Structures are given as C-alpha cells and as structure tokens.
C-alpha cells in the first residue's frame, strides 16, 4: 500500500499548532479528520471525542493531540521575549532555533545564541531559559503590542522525508499516534467489527496528564488502547533502552497495562505477520495509559508505541511503515475482539 496518503495526513496533522495546554487548532483539525469516520466533538478541555459502532465491548482508542512547546513569560525593554517550556523541551537544541510565536499575529522568531566570545570558558554549558530569549526583530513597542505573556510558541521546522519512508517534523510526538488511529479507522471503514469504538485525541499529555484522565472518565470504556511514541534506536543510545525504526509497533508491558491485552496483541501480530517488539517497563509508562488505566473503576489498558528518534526536538523522526503497522495491529485487534463477542 502506498504510504503517500499517510504521509500527507501526518504532515497535515503535524503542521497544526497544539502546544500542551493550548491545543485548540490542532484539536480542530483532528476533529475534522475524525468526523470522516464518526460524529466528533470537542470537550471542555479541547480534547476531541468520537464514538461509533455497537457491540458488547467498548474500546477506547487514545492518542494525545498536544505537543511540547513554550509559553511567553515576558517581553523586555528591547523587545526580547522570555519563555518557559511547556513540556520537557530539550534545551540543547534551542540556540538559533526558529520558532513561531502565536501572539496577536503569528510572528517569526529565532532563539538567541550567545556568541562564543562572550563565554568565560563555559560556552559548552547548556543555556537555561533565563539566558535564552526569542528575537523577533521587532522594536520593543511593537513587540509588546503583538506579544503578551501566555502566548504559546512552537518550533518552526521543515517537514522532510528521509530515505526509506522516514519523516521529519516537529509534533510527531504524538501526531504519529493520532495518524495511526485515523488510519486504523480507515482500515475498518465499512467493516462490521462488532465493537463499540470511542476515540479520544487528548490534551495535556506533555504537561498535566489531565486530558487522558478526563476523557477516559467521560467515555467509560471497557478497554483502552493508548498510542504514543517511544525511543527509537540511534547512534550513541543504549540499545536496551530503544527500539529500531522499521521494527514495528511496540507492545507495552508494565504494571498499569493489562497483561491479557498485551498477550492478545502479541498473538495477533504473530498471526497476521505484523512486525512488533515488546517494551517492558517496571513502573509507570509515563504516557496517557497511566491515567486511563485507573479512571472510574478501572479500564483495561494497552499501550502501543511507535519508535521515534530525537524526541522533543524540532526534528522528530518516525517511520511511515511503523505508523501503518500500528494502524493494522489495532484494526486486527478490534476485529478479533469483536468476533470474540464478550466484554
């Protein structure tokens, strides 16, 4: 199957702005995409919800719609803009990085980079947010008129395709998961699968985790499949902590995750010849799955992860094939779960 439609969907989703805590425009786009498959709406916190189908079991498909970014804290007397991180941005990639300030207008800016001549032998030390500013090229008066504390800031970066179906973009964490769910729905389009399916594209995973908790509460599913990204193998990173791009989705195993569901995923992946790996964690998963699993009286929850390089930077990298296989794996799970006919 051509990966072009998936790539187009993914780049479109990643092109929308949804800094954690300010997801509206990304949510609007995701809602439009979801409404191709089911009635969709936005909840009080701007998470997107949809529901379709009927059956004895109610399965929630979840991915977070927010992305890491920054929030304006001050505009100084020379017009330089101070920010705080929203989510765990990697400070090592910020000097001279390009951003967009989502103020009264969308403004281009560049993070300041202190020239080496100014360092007292500490030029190699990572600058914290008290020494990083955004240069908008605007005089102070104009900057203060257009930019205010609380405005969100996103990386401006190019979306590129690398060799062999790998793609580069900011916000692939977790629009890759959103895209995987939408592709799964495409695969199930017109198929009698025998399940009640809810979808949640949830806010604030990168910050408070509030989106997953509240959406899981509102939806009240029997089972949930949360889709997120995980660490992709790359040079200089311990292989035991990472998973190869192209190796397929990772099936999570961790205390909050339902072991029966994980086992079922493995069985299906083997039967359907879908490449997969197992991601074992000794405690929390630090994903939406943690919040969903213990919402209401508990939801059986699985975590499916897409390997990603350079997480939380402007150059996140995922493989289209892995996203496609994540969609397939979920679709096969839903088909089998529906065929089983129990809750």
């Amino acid at each position: 199957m051509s990966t072009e439609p998936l790539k187009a969907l993914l780049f479109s989703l990643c092109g929308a702005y949804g800094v954690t805590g300010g997801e509206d425009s990304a949510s609007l786009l995701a809602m439009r995409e979801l409404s191709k498959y089911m009635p969709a709406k936005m909840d009080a916190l701007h998470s997107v919800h949809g529901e379709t189908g009927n059956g004895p079991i109610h399965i929630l498909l979840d991915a977070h719609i927010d992305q890491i970014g920054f929030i304006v804290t001050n505009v100084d007397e020379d017009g330089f803009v101070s920010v705080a991180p929203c989510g765990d941005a990697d400070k090592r990639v910020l000097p001279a990085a390009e951003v967009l300030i989502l103020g009264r207008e969308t403004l281009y800016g560049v993070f300041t980079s202190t020239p080496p001549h100014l360092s007292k032998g500490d030029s190699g030390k990572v600058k914290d947010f008290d020494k990083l500013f955004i240069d908008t090229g605007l005089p102070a008066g104009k900057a203060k008129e257009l930019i205010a504390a609380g405005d969100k800031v996103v990386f401006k970066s190019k979306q590129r395709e690398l060799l062999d179906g790998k793609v580069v973009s900011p916000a692939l964490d977790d629009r890759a998961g959103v895209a995987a769910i939408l592709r799964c729905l495409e695969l199930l389009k017109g198929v009698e699968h025998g399940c009640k399916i809810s979808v949640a594209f949830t806010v604030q995973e990168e910050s408070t985790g509030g989106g997953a908790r509240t959406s899981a509460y509102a939806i009240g599913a029997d089972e949930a499949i949360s889709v997120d990204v995980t660490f992709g193998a790359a040079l200089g990173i311990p292989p035991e902590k990472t998973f190869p791009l192209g190796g397929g989705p990772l099936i999570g195993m961790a205390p909050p995750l339902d072991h029966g569901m994980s086992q079922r995923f493995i069985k299906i992946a083997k039967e359907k010849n879908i490449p997969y790996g197992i991601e074992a964690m000794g405690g929390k998963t630090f994903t939406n799955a943690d919040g969903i699993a213990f919402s209401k009286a508990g939801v059986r929850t699985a975590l499916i992860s897409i390997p990603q390089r350079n997480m939380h930077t402007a150059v996140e990298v995922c493989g289209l094939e892995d996203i496609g296989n994540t969609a397939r794996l979920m679709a096969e799970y839903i088909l089998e779960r529906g065929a089983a006919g129990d809750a």
Partner: protein
Amino acid sequence: MLNKLESLCGLYGVSGREDAVREYIISQIRDKAEFHTDNSGNLIVFKKGRQVPKNKVMLAAHMDEVGFIVTFITDDGYLRFDTVGGIDASVLSGRSVLVGGRLVPGVIGVKPVHLLKSEEKENYPEKDMLYIDIGAPSKARAGEAVSVGDAAYFDSDFVEFGDGFVKGRAIDDRAGCALMLHMIGGELEFDTWFAFTAQEETGSGGAFAAAFAVEPDYSIVLEATTAADIAGVKGEKRVCALGGGAAISFMDRGTIYPRDLFDRAFELARENGVKAQPKTLVAGSNDAAAVFKSRAGVRVLTLSLPCRYIHSPSCVISAPDLYETEKLARLLAADFARR
C-alpha cells in the same frame, strides 16, 4: 540588493566548494566587467570606472560559508562529520541539514532528553559525538545517496521578519558578495578590482592568492561580523548592533588596521550622513589578515555587517545596514583611489 542576497544565500558552497556561488556571480557580471577565475577558486573582477585611480583599490568578500563535511559512514548508515569553519557546539544538535550535491535531507540526531544523565544535560554535545541521520538503515543504503567527502549544510530558508530583519544560512559572507555585485552592476568613479574569495572560513587562503595577483595598494574587506546586541549583553561585549550601520574594525585577531584609515572611515560617514559604528571587541579574523601581508604590504580596512547568531543556521542582519555599508564602501573606495 536584498534579492541578490536571497539568491546568493540560496546557493551552497562550503570552503573549497564555492563553484555554485562563483558560477552565479559570473552569470550576473558577465557583460559588466572583466573577470577570471584563479587556481585557488577566487573570482577576480575588474570594473572600469570613470577615472583611472591614483591607487589600486581591491574590494574583497568571501564566497564560502561554514558547513560540514562527511568523514565516515557507520555500519548502521549514520554519517559522522567534521565542521568546515567554526561552528559552535550549541547550534549543532537537532538541526535539519542537506547533504551532498543532491542535497539529501538529514538531521543531526540527539539522544532523547528523557534518557540523558544529569551531566549530559549540562553540556552541548560536541561534534565528534554527533551524527547526521539521513534515514539510511545501512552503510550500503547510505552510500547510494551520499559519500564520504560530501559537503553538508544547515537546511535553513531566507526569511524577512520583524522590522527590516533578514535571516539566512550563509549571510556570512554572501552579504559582502551581494554588496560587490551591486557595485559592479552600477557605475563606479574609479577603476576598481573586486575579489570574490575562496576559503576564508578555513584560513583565508583564497584572499592571499587574490591579493598577490591583483597587487592592490589599498583593500576594503566586506564581511559579516558577530553582533551580540541581545538581551543580557552590555557595553563593548555587544561588539556591534544591528541597525547601526557598518561595523569598522580597529583590530581583530588577524589584523591591526591602519589608524588613519579607521579614522577616515568615520570622518566620511559623518560628512555624508552614513551610519557606521566601531567593532568594539578584538575578536575574529577575516581576509584582511591575508591581504595586508601580501607582497610588500597592503593598507586594508574591514567593513562588516553586524550579524546576530553568525555561523549558525539562523544568521540575522538588518537590511538597512546593507545599504549603509554599501554607501560607506563606495565612499572609502573612491577616497583610497584618489589619495
């Protein structure tokens, strides 16, 4: 002139690979001046003026830019690289790049922030720790797209933003090239030599050869220099400021400039209402260091465009500074010619 700068910044040419820049400049001056390319890769241009000068004046700007060179391909298909020219470790991680003649997209990969040990969080990774990821799963696959010895560049667009600001990849020193192109395109008071030099960023080898061949009495180096007029930096450490016109050097790490030329530049600026400012820190070096030492010596001055975040993917200048610098370069060139 801004259009010329945009075209020039759209070209790729690390030190020693200035061909595309040189070809473009030739295409722009073909019927306007005499020119030749020398063995060092310099483009030497002679433009007839209205008068024959008393002194021979050479303007110089370098065509090359900082970037990368692929040094090794790992078995897993990652590219190890070295920097060509000085690029600070703080602007390497997590950047988009383009590799080789085919401009294959890649990124400089980073270990995810979640997996860093505390000491790794404190320092920018050095270049020998880093790699370019073009998505190749193996050495063989990478070898189909790129090769050891390929140049690589920051993948960074030309952007006009803010209040007359411009951001681009190779502004250092395509800005100087754009100024000279603009001067060659118009009328000049005196016969003038222009050297579009090669390999400034790796030691000004090109400029040395150019000065040797042209034999100027006076030379004006048109450059871009670091401007640290950013939040938290005060006094002389700012070096120069965007919007203040050309930064004029009295001394840098390669050259001690003749005091009378430095003074004359400010005098001409004042008399003609042209903006100019001193470069307030003894830092950096440029082609002037090679030019003043050539043959029996050349009297040289450097005019620099103040440039924030120089040698990064996001060099930022103020467009009005371009025009002010050109005005001063013209005034000085004529002054030196008739001395």
